[in-house]
Structure formats: structure tokens, C-alpha cells
């Protein structure tokens, strides 16, 4: 028994010692820069044109996008040494709405320690701990609520559009992501479909007193592409109560976002 205890203690020490990632002190650094995120929405590399039936997804659906509303949260700036900075001083959840230009710019409140960062990650949607009903009472965020009977909290995203079905009829899709449900004989299991996005090629350097503008692009076609070819004819117009569809969509989300540091050069 004593050996087991000793081994456990040593193992714990070893695990702690091996754990490289440590948060950077969020207290006010002596030298720091600021970050401004700008959100862009593209289809096949070009800026989104809403309300126009002109796009073809991987499944061959002719489709249009009318509006997109979504949350990103828990943005983390990573360093090569494993340390990281959490953006959370004023706002740790940001709402983006293609109909509200003001939401497409996020002037981050935090004073970000200057230096080299190896990458950016964030949660698409809101994590399970934070995604609680009534935490937003004011519009537009409050309009994103996810009904309590379906798990509560908030939509991660509403992507609304239309597509042409095989009979050439125009149908409407509400590509909505949030908490999924698996209905059992006795209980309902709620599935948190939020996921982490690791932005590729997102290394950057922030100088003291610099304000860096970072473009975050949603490449809309990727929601329907990989690893799951998402066919609106198969999944239909509404998916909030279809965990399989939301899982497929969430799995596709891994490469939906990209970064553009040259987006906003003046």
C-alpha cells in the first residue's frame, strides 16, 4: 500500500512537472499591445453575398445564405513555450452578426503582453460551463437563446439560408448549432457540441504599444464539406433536435475558420 501511495505521489509530481502550459499573468503587464479582431464571411474565397442563390456546396446543393449569427469565446493566444494568454478581462464571449456591422469588430479590452505568439485558438459557441440560460438578458445576444427543453443556454450559431431541392423547389434551412439531445428510455442526455478551433497559420508578433488587427474569416462552404459532406436534402431544414446532423456540422467546423493578418492594412 505504501508503495502505491509513493508511486501515486511521484506520478502526480511528474505529471505536474511535465505540464508545460501555464497561463500568462493577466495582470497589467509593463509592456503590452492591443488586439482588434475583425470578422469576415466568405464563400469559396470571396466575400459572402447574402440573399442570392448562387453557391454550390460539396453535396451539390445550390444554396444561398441570408444571415449568420454566432458566438466565439475563450480566445487563447499561445506561445511557443506552451504558455498562453486568455482573453477574458472584459469580455470572454463575443457575438457576431452579419446583419449588425458593429459586431463584426471586436476591440479586445485586454492589455496583451507583447512578444511572439505561436497561434490563436477559440471555442466555437460557448463551453458547457458557461452556456447557461439567462446569462444574456439583452438583445441581440438574448435572441440567441436555445430553448430549455432542448438543453437551454444559447445557440452557438444560426446560419439561415435557402437551397434548391431535387424537384427544383426552394426550401429553407436553419443550420443551427447548440446543445444536442439524445433521448433515452428514461432520461435525455444533453450533448455540448461546442468545439475548439485552432486557427492555422496564426502566429504573430505583438509589439509594445501596437494595436494589431487580426481578421478571422468564416469560410462558409467548409461547414458542408469535410469530413462530412453535408447534404441539405438529407438533413432537411431544421436540425436543432437532430444530434446526428449537429455532430456532423460540428465535426466540419474544424477548418471553417482561417486567419488573415493582412485583412485590414490601412
Amino acid at each position, binding site marked *: 500500500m505504501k508503495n502505491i501511495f509513493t508511486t501515486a505521489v511521484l506520478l502526480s509530481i511528474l505529471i505536474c512537472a511535465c505540464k508545460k502550459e501555464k497561463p500568462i499573468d493577466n495582470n497589467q503587464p509593463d509592456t503590452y499591445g492591443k488586439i482588434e479582431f475583425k470578422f469576415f464571411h466568405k464563400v469559396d474565397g470571396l466575400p459572402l453575398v447574402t440573399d442570392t442563390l448562387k453557391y454550390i456546396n460539396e453535396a451539390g446543393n445550390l444554396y444561398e445564405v441570408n444571415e449568420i449569427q454566432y458566438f466565439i469565446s475563450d480566445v487563447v493566444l499561445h506561445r511557443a513555450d506552451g504558455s498562453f494568454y486568455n482573453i477574458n478581462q472584459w469580455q470572454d464571449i463575443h457575438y457576431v452578426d452579419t446583419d449588425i456591422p458593429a459586431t463584426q469588430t471586436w476591440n479586445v479590452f485586454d492589455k496583451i503582453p507583447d512578444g511572439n505568439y505561436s497561434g490563436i485558438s477559440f471555442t466555437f459557441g460557448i463551453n458547457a460551463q458557461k452556456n447557461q440560460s*439567462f446569462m444574456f438578458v439583452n438583445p441581440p445576444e438574448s*435572441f440567441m437563446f436555445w430553448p430549455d427543453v432542448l438543453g437551454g443556454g444559447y445557440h452557438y450559431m444560426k446560419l439561415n439560408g435557402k437551397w434548391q431541392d431535387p424537384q427544383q423547389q426552394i426550401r429553407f434551412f436553419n443550420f443551427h448549432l447548440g446543445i444536442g439531445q439524445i433521448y433515452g428510455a428514461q432520461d435525455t442526455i444533453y450533448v455540448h457540441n461546442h468545439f475548439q478551433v485552432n486557427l492555422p497559420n496564426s502566429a504573430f508578433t505583438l509589439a509594445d504599444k501596437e494595436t494589431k488587427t487580426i481578421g478571422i474569416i468564416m469560410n462558409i462552404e467548409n461547414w458542408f464539406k469535410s469530413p462530412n459532406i453535408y447534404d441539405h436534402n438529407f438533413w432537411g431544414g431544421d436540425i436543432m433536435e437532430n444530434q446526428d446532423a449537429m455532430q456532423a456540422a460540428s465535426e466540419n467546423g474544424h477548418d471553417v475558420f482561417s486567419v488573415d493578418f493582412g485583412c485590414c492594412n490601412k
Partner: protein
Amino acid sequence: MKLIFQPMKRKINLIPIILLFFVTFSTCKKENPLPPDNDKPDSFNPTPYTLDLPFYFPTVLNIPPDNPMTIEGIELGRYLFYDGRLSGRTHPDSLMTCATCHLQEYGFSTGINHPKFTGGRPFGLTGIQTPHYTMPLVNLVFNSNGYLWNGMIHESNDFLYENNPLYHRRNIESLVWMGIVAPHEMYGNVDQTVQLIASIPMYAEKFEAAFGTPEVTYERISKAIAQFVRSLVSFDSKFDKYLRGEVQLTTQELQGFVLFTTESGADCFHCHGASQNPLWTTNLFYNNAKDSIFNDPRDRFAFTGDVMDKGAYKSPTLRNIELTGPYMHDGRFSTLEEVIDFYSEGLVFSPYANPLMHKLPDNGAQLTPNQKQALLSFLKTLTDESFTTNPAFSKPADL
């Protein structure tokens, strides 16, 4: 938004901050296009009005900085709201005011059983019908997305505001002016109204209490009525009490609520809210698939010019929906049963229908009779009788 405050660790020189505050403050004052009410005496100190709201209600209030709500202002507004002489006329046949069309017993809508306006369709003093049916005046203090069915009264109308600081199309204050002059409403003129109200002895004291001096101006009339309208807040329906844990809903009402908040059910919640949006509207504009031909010169498209807004109208609140018929902008449905039938099997395709109307291929939600009844039962839990009988919102006894 979650707010995380960073504790101060360094001493901060406050002088630049104070200077910045004054610069900002004075800049803001300059930007206010309304002429200041210079007649206020220094001792004027009206009682601020505070709203005591449940935890699930919005905290952002749409109150213009130049018209804060006060007990005295709201009380004056209540008198004017109910005083038929607001029309600028005194003959009993020509009296008209806000309350002529906005009846408390019908949740401050016209109501289908209105004693004068058959079927709930109002008309003005000269018989000209209003372009649309009446929207209820409730919880407008939380609305920042424009007023009327098409949202044409909107804070973005700055260009009108600058050119005509008193008669603009920005907010509830604007609606008072429109109500007085519009041919389909009082069809009067502002000067006549001001003159008449100023000649009524009881108002001098009320204007003084609300604004510091007894002077009657159009600006003060509109501000007082707007304050009263902003005070019309409803948060005590059976469903509110259920949310607060004070009552239980029946099985049928709960079944209706589930239908209301699920896509597989009736999917009402995306446009009309639910427990987490207790306004029971987004105050946004949707083409809800009522028609395939659009020729209303006052739809949302007429205001925005965006072709996708053809046939779109503001989503009306469902608070007190049981009382606020007839329904839709054109009052085409007399009963809630007809409305539910429409959303169940009456949707009509058009390219302009909002994508949230995803049940269009089936012409609607295809509800069973039992489901329709459950949905109806739930909708009736949104009736707030304490709102429709609140003496603070009623006609003053001495008017």
C-alpha cells in the same frame, strides 16, 4: 456580456480623466439637437422613475437622454394620453387621443370588440382608415428596433432629426406628433393642440411638476406621453409567475410551451421569444409567408429598400396576445385559432419568405387538433391581467 473588472494596482492621475469626462460631456451636450429647456428653475428636481423588473428581463432601456422618466412626467403623460382634447378640439364628436385606439383592457391595442372601430380597424377623425391595424403599446422601453409594423420610426432617422428637431421620426416622442397631425388619426395641428392644452387650468400645475414651469409646449407634451408609454411594462402574466416559481402551468399549457419552443413543434420561438426573451418578440422584421404578391406601400421594404424585406413586418409581441386581435398587420385573422391554423397549414411560398419559415414545404407545422389546443392554452398564459387593470396605467378619475 460577462464583465470582469481588473483591480487597480497603480495610482492613477485623475486630472486627465476628469478633463476627458468634461470634454466628452460637453461634446455630448452639443450633439443633442433638441433645444435645451431653459425655462427650468434651478430648484426643479422631479422624482426619478425606476422600473423594478424580474431577473429575466432586459436591463438596457431605450430612454432618450433628453427625456428621462420621472413620476411627474409619467403622470402628466397619463392625463394627456387619455385626454381627447389632445386632438386640439373640444366638441364631443371630435375628441381623440392615444387612448382612443390604444385601450388598456386590450393590452393597449385597439381590440376586435372596440366600441367604435368595428373589427378593431381604427380610423381618424375624418374617417380615413389607418394604414395598418394597431400594434399594442407594451414593453416599448426595451425596444431599439424601430416602431410601427415597418419600423419606419427609428433612431437611424437622424437626417430628419437634424432638419426638424421637434418633428422627427425617431422614437415614441415622434409618434405623438404623428398621432396629432396624421390624416388617419387626429388630423389636427400641433399649435392648436398646444393652445388648447395650455388653456385647461389643471395642466399648469402638472406641467410645472413635470418640467419645472407651467409652460405648455409641444416638446413637453410629446415627452410626457412618451414617458407614460415607456412606463407601460408588463411582466406579471401567468407564464411570468411560472418562471418565477409562483405558479405551475397545466399539462396542456406546458405541452403548448414545448410546441412553441421546438422546431419539430410549431417553432414560434425564433421570432417570438420564450422564457429567455420575455418580450415575446425580437422586434425584428420577417416575411412570415402570408402572401405571394406584395403591394403594400408601407411594408418593411418601403422603408429599407431591401427587396428581401418585401412583405416583411415587425414580429408583434405575444404578450397579451389573447386580447390584441385582430391579428397581422392587416388584421386578416380575427381569432388566435385562425392564426394557429395559418401557421399549421396555411403558409404560402414566395422568394421573400424568411428562411425561418422552414416548414413551408408542408405549408406549416401540421399540428393536430390537440396540439393546436395546447398551443392556444399556452398563448393564453401570456395574458397579464395586472397590466390590463393597473390603475397607474388607467384613465385618471378626474378626467
